């Protein structure tokens, strides 16, 4: 964007329907309303008129007078490559080259409100609406051209950003049609869309649209930014959870030339002209802390159970399920323990804040720029409109960057010193004071009927969450319950949420039931499943893997499947246990994944791979260790994440379902990894593990 536009924008609270063209020049734009997005699943005909108020606008597509296309969405890019896939769907429906499209994302001033980029919602919800908006725009341009050329609209077609009239061999560029126009149109809900099997841009592996900037080091992450006169901030933090500040001696820090110490109640921060000085200044503060008793990792599971909220009244299903279980001869009971794990986004939390009078601008890496805008407005008691949050494409998140801690800290320091301030968390801060994937205790009890079908299924999840908790198999009686609890450590969203834990517990039990019956775990699952998409991924993965083939001595095969939000994964694992050195090796993984129609096969495969590998860490060795509220392994040398040498050969089969709408893909594939490996370990060694991570200290200690 050129300087003059930026200058105008800074005097304006937000782009609204009314000032859209004043700020952006002329052209034609189509508006997607929130009701289109959220009403999408049930009522496709909402949002017909443009009387929607500005708060309900979800996205815009704008064709400028020079023919350039801008797409405005509050979604953000954290490495899932939606900057590319959303541009693809627009390019497809609008018949323009992808190079002509600029995606303006995650900027509270420039883009309409968006609740956040999480839960794999961008592709299934924003994607179809942007498609419709682009198609509506194209339709409007065709109608305009028909009028201008005085020919029937049916005689026209669109190609590469132009309207073509074959009969007269004439073309009209889109830009020429929008010249002198200021036209804001509602989305046309009935507009014809291009069927997935005729896609030419969507459905292909378009490379990352700004990929070049990431191999040259040119892309500016928040942590790379520098503003004139900017200083660097550091925040004083307690050594452990549950500690409160008693006294702090700031004298030494205060007298370091160039350093300012900022105190506000319990908040103590320093700013300095360079990060090293800020670090030194912080270290020069001596502090007395008061500790309060805190739980430790050793007793976390009993703690979570004891502190669980009273569940809902038994509607009878629990009693009935218990009765069937107690009466059965053939039954199993497990207790599954899931540790806290960290997201470890490689770019830690970062923010740059700048005040201009009472106007605040903050650049920060967050999945919820509009949420952080509210956080900031609340923290400084200013109107939301006075706060602009901008989210540069960020060094990943995986569900771990919903919050705006660094943003608030930078803004607080910036306000106090009257200069722009950058705050970048250290790895240790990120480990200790971001938030974790919840720990959880899962109790599961199942019984079999004499014919080998499932008689009872009882499932209790304490604290970790209820995503993926549904039992996808047939059961005569079932009772499934999630018990929220009190968490001693800060916890929050994670890739796939609690589905990693719940699917792990379900799939371990399914395998053990099959073993109990001495039937093949694949056949057992297929027989108990009702959902044909789940059956299809299982069969596909098994076939590619060679499930029924012979295995080498000491090797084991494992299989597992799961679904989250309309997408299905099945994973097969082969492991080998070397008794001589007591090492467990994951020999290979094969996964089949179905998430409906595929927008970008390569980026989809990358997301699936990334999720599977992240699953590998949580399956085998990732865990947060803590004692008395103190995080004991807040470094990359003590908290292990998967590295090159941990990566087994991976084979991924993407099942394209052009008949099913696209689902988001960043999460589901993570859920199959742990149970597939666990079941393979059981197959190879007879050792049945019921915890995540499974082998933090190697297999021999189990």
């Amino acid at each position, binding site marked *: 964007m050129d300087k003059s536009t930026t200058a105008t924008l800074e005097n304006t609270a937000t782009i609204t329907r009314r000032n859209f063209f004043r700020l952006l020049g002329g052209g034609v734009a189509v508006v997607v309303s929130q009701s289109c997005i959220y009403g999408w699943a049930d009522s496709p005909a909402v949002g017909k008129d443009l009387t929607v108020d500005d708060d309900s606008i979800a996205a815009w597509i704008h064709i400028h007078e020079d023919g350039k296309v801008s797409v405005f969405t509050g979604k953000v890019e954290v*490495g899932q490559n939606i900057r590319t896939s959303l541009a693809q769907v627009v390019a497809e429906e609008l018949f323009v080259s992808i190079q002509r499209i600029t995606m303006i994302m995650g900027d509270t001033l420039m883009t309409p409100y968006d609740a956040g980029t999480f839960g794999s919602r961008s592709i299934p919800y924003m994607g179809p609406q942007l498609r419709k908006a682009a198609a509506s725009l194209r339709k409007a341009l065709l109608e305009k051209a028909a009028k201008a050329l005085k020919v029937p609209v049916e005689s026209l077609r669109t190609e590469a950003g132009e309207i073509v009239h074959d009969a007269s061999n004439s073309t009209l560029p889109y830009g020429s049609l929008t010249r002198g126009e200021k036209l804001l149109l509602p989305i046309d809900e009935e507009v014809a869309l291009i069927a997935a099997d005729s896609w030419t841009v969507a459905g292909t592996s378009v490379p990352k649209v700004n990929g070049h900037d990431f191999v040259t080091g040119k892309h500016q992450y928040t942590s790379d930014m520098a503003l004139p006169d900017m200083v660097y901030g550091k925040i004083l933090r307690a050594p452990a959870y549950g500690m409160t500040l008693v006294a702090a001696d700031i004298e030494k820090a205060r007298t370091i030339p160039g350093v300012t110490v900022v105190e506000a109640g319990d908040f103590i921060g320093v700013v300095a002209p360079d990060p090293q000085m800020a670090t030194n200044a912080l270290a020069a503060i001596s502090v007395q802390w008061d500790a309060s008793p805190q739980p430790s990792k050793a007793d976390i599971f009993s703690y979570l159970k004891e502190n669980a909220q009273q569940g809902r009244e038994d509607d009878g299903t629990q009693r009935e399920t218990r009765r069937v279980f107690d009466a059965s001869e053939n039954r199993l009971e497990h207790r599954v323990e899931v540790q806290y794990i960290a997201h470890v986004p490689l770019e830690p939390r970062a923010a740059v804040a700048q005040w201009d009078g009472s106007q605040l601008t903050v650049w920060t890496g967050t999945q919820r720029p509009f949420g952080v805008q509210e956080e900031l407005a609340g923290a400084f008691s200013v109107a939301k409109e006075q706060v602009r949050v901008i989210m540069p494409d960020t060094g990943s998140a995986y569900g771990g960057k919903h919050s705006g801690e660094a943003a608030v800290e930078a803004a607080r320091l910036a306000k106090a010193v009257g200069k722009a301030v950058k705050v970048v968390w250290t790895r240790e801060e990120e480990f200790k004071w971001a938030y974790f994937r919840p720990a959880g205790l899962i109790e599961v009890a199942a019984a079999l009927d004499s014919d080998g079908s499932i008689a009872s299924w009882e499932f209790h999840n304490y604290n970790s969450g209820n995503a993926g908790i549904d039992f996808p198999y047939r059961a005569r009686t079932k009772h499934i319950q999630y018990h929220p609890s009190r968490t001693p450590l800060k916890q929050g969203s994670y890739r796939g949420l609690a589905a990693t834990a719940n699917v792990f517990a379900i799939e371990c039990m399914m395998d053990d039931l099959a073993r109990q019956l001495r039937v093949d775990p694949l056949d057992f699952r297929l027989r108990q499943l009702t959902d044909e998409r789940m059956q299809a991924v299982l069969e596909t993965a098994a076939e590619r893997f060679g499930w029924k083939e012979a295995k080498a001595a000491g090797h084991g095969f494992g299989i597992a499947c799961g679904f989250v939000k309309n997408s299905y994964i099945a994973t097969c694992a082969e492991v080998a246990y070397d008794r001589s050195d007591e090492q467990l090796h994951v020999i290979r993984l094969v996964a089949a994944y179905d998430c409906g129609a595929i927008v970008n096969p390569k980026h989809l495969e990358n997301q699936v791979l*990334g999720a599977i590998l992240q699953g590998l860490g949580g399956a085998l060795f990732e865990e947060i260790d803590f004692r008395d509220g103190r995080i004991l392994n807040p470094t990359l040398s003590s908290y292990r994440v998967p590295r090159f040498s941990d990566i087994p050969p991976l084979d991924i089969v993407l099942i394209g379902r052009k008949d099913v709408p696209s689902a988001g893909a960043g999460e589901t594939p993570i859920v199959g990894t742990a149970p597939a490996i666990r079941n393979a370990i059981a197959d190879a060694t007879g050792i049945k593990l019921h915890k995540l991570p499974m082998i933090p200290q190697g297999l021999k200690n189990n």
Partner: protein
Amino acid sequence: MATLKLTVNRKEYEVDADPQMPLLWVLRDFIGLTGTKFGCGIAQCGACTVHVGDAAVRSCSIPVESVVNQPITTIEGLSDDGSHPVQQAWETIDVPQCGYCQAGQIMTAVALLKQNPNPTDEDINASMTNICRCGTYNRIKKAIRLAAEEV
């Protein structure tokens, strides 16, 4: 504080900095070359990898005074426009997801290929110890193999 003379990407710089300051901060915050990233600060992740001479070095863990008068290369100095064969291979394979680790990965790969123009998978596993939390490892391997063919 001391005045230190550095040669970065064939250019001379004079910086006033604490001689013990990690090279990474000097590159990023004094010279303004922000392509080199911070990921851990303790030589564990490789996001901060640069070359000192031909060797890949984790700049978060060496004091700036130790590289005075030695040729330092950062991602920005690999080529003016991303035309280095390793960068090109990265683009062809479309390696990056969030991209944060990739400058370090590329610098490590370039140093590896200089030493060993035809690395086996084991060689790659042994020398590529950089972390990619997005899990682009397999594509990085592919890109290294592709670059090895081109170089």
